[in-house]
């Protein structure tokens, strides 16, 4: 359980943390870096709430050890957009009112952004497939799918 300095690039910012290198990334984001937008849902990579992008690929941060994120580009929900410069996906989610409790939304937005990054004009079936790793208990699925398709039409890029 030795601590070591791990270099990270998170939302475009280079930073480093002193931590045990097997610490799941979600705890480093939330506790060490104060990026609370990444939610912990199950800790078993089964619900999708904690997804972040690692070099453009959406992964569960509860099952990503810190060392695996070293020197890779990590994008969290906080890196998608800001209150005064929303990401097209965030804008579309607001327009479609695509959430109820919103606990699952951070991970879903990250996966949607990863999808649009490699497939800018997805079909509805492709959107559903890309979001299939994400559970939503409130039943806001169809609104979210509509919002992703809407964002794609305005040319959202990651």
């Amino acid at each position, binding site marked *: *359980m030795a601590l070591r300095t791990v270099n990270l690039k998170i939302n475009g910012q280079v930073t480093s943390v002193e931590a045990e290198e097997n*610490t*799941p990334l979600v*705890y480093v984001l*939330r*506790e060490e870096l104060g990026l*609370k*937008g*990444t*939610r*912990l*849902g*199950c*800790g*078993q990579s*089964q*619900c999708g*709430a904690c997804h972040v992008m690692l070099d453009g690929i959406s992964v569960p941060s509860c099952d990503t050890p810190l060392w695996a994120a070293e020197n890779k580009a990590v994008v*969290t*929900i*906080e890196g998608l*957009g*800001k*209150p005064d410069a*929303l990401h097209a*996906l*965030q804008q579309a*989610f*607001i327009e479609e*009112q695509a*959430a*109820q*409790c*919103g*606990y*699952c*939304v*951070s991970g879903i*937005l990250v996966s949607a952004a990863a999808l649009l990054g490699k497939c800018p004009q997805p079909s509805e*079936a492709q*959107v*559903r*497939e890309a*979001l*299939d790793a*994400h*559970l*939503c*208990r*409130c*039943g*806001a*699925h*169809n*609104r*979210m*799918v509509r919002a992703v398709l809407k964002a794609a039409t305005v040319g959202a890029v990651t």
Partner: protein
Amino acid sequence: MSSNTSDSSSKIPVVLPGSLQTNRRLSQWLAFHADGCVTVRTGKVDLGQGISTVLAQIAAEELDVDLACIRMERASTVQGPNEGMTAGSMSVQDSGSALRQACAEAREIYLNLAALQRGLTPSQRAELRVVDGEFVSSADEIIGRYGALADDALLDIEASGIAKPKSAAEHTLTGQAVPRLDMPGKVLGQADFIHDMVLPGQLYGRVAHPPSPRAVLLEVALDGINALPGVVTTVRDGSFIGVIAKTDYAAAQALKKLAAAARWDEPATLPDMHAVSEFLRSQPVDSTLAGEKKSDTPGPSLAISDASRAAAGAQSFKASYARPFLAHASIGPSCALARCEADASGEITRVEVWTHSQGIYNLRPDLALVLGLPAAQIAVRHVPGAGCYGHNGADDAACDAVLLARAVPGRPVQLQWTREDELSCAPFGAAMAVDLQAVVDADGRISDWQHDVWSNGHSMRPGRSSTPVLYAAALLEKPFARQVAINMPLANGGGAERNALPSYDFAQWRTHSHRALAMPLRTSSLRSLGAHCNVFAVESFLDEMAEQLGVDPLVFRLRHLSDERGRAVLNAAAAMADWPNRHAVERREGAGIGIAFARYKNTGAYCAVVAAVHAEAEVRVEQLWIAADVGLVVNPDGVRNQIEGGAIQTVSWVLKEAVQFDRTRVTSRSWADYPILRFSEVPKVDVQLVSRPGDKSLGAGEATHGPVAAAIANAVADALGLRMRQMPLSADALLQAALADPR
């Protein structure tokens, strides 16, 4: 100021709308500020349903201020109205109607004061209007503002009931699809959840819950746990064991070691998972007549012999239906924060709790009983958690947090449950069995009907008894006796018997509720309570009867439904789905369509659903057409979101969900063992709202759960000719039904 409150001691107090009746001071509900903003307080809490936005909309409407000037304050026992639980789809009725009246009165008080200061005549006063918080005369002169007169003392009086809220025709904001005020924060990932809270000096806790419902802790070696990196201390009180650490991660790591270090005695106390209906019927029960209707001119009834019924040209029907135990299965784990203060001797003197409980005022007295403290020394504040659909683990987690925080006075402790805890320790929605019998007379009308429901109670909420019901209470060294869930009285919506009374005009009927007195698994309120299975049963049974009688299921329902609002939603849903032509085109193999209806609680929202399914090895719901009448709609998009979300959640319950257990443990402890509906499985959902601006709001959150369940079962029967009477309608269940089918 108000003549009827000053001399009211000898009079019966005026009846006020909603929760204003029991929280009568206007200052409990709102306060004006010099900057023109208005603080609005409510005892109802946001559970993910977006109620804060709707209540802000109502306040802005009555006060005529900009919605952006309304500051919604989170519920707490420290300040604001006590509105009990946020449950039963009652928030717009309870809190909305109260706020409407309180704001109308506040508006009158402020306008009267402004008129007095300006020396207006009564007719000039009557012509005053409010525009964006400014008081405007008939000559378009601004004579005052809320902000300029802001004074808390003005509202420190009881409501009079005299001021009249706006009529439907005067509404400008009501009925508008106002975007949720909390939506930007949600999509930006802002730290608004209780899981994100960090107080100065905060520590982090985990509890190693018993691995089975009646497990007793035999031994646990805590020395090794205390020596782990980051661990501050461990707590043991009877079979309650937990760990407190400096970081959340250290707590999570230490929990694994703590759980491994504990040795438990685990008695096998659970019934056979595959025979729950039989278990419920074989237990000692508390049986009650939930309701009945007798007829002076009874037609053929269940009481007469088969031969007499046959002689009268009547037919009799009988069938049984069931649902399994269901988990709340929120996406976020239950979480709470607690901070205890102690005096010099170490006695706890004051406790603060932050919780996502549905009922902060109910949680407080139960915590007081567990701690042996007066409730007044406990402050409970609401902070949003992940979506809440009933009495989940939130209250239990709050108790766990307090029991840990007691060991570190002065330090706040954030306690979080694990996914396993969430799926195995939180209360479950009760399993149910429903027996239905009916007689149809020679004219094809139902002349007698009997509904028997067997179930554990659907309510074990805190704050209602002298014994605390919180999970840890029964684990302590000085344990509190385990309580058995009850059913709330029908006047409060009932529990197992919710919607067990017919929504239809049957000549005579009776409903019995049989509450099991043994409770091997903890049960309490899950969204829609008994309505989900009762409506599933009733609406499946009606289809079975219609089929045997050779009558269209829609026609058969309308034949027994005189309530115009019920007929309107049934006809609307049928029109959306082009019901009369549903079999006109050649159908794909396995395609089926079904219909169902209910009026939630028999007094709430009307909802009719048509479901289209595709059923082969498994059932896939392809589309739902839903027509709903929720009375006055304050925010149509909010209502649609609730209707759609409720419907999709129900599809998940009906197709996939059942708590799994062996004779000792709950075995569905992860999403792999308790799967819920995924994006690729979600049907298209069309919603039509039948607007009734002149009628009171009826609540939307639970209207769909019964009708969607039955419409799916009826569609499966239409597709395959197989009648599925037990939920879930899983691939396994489908196979078994096919094997058991005599054809």
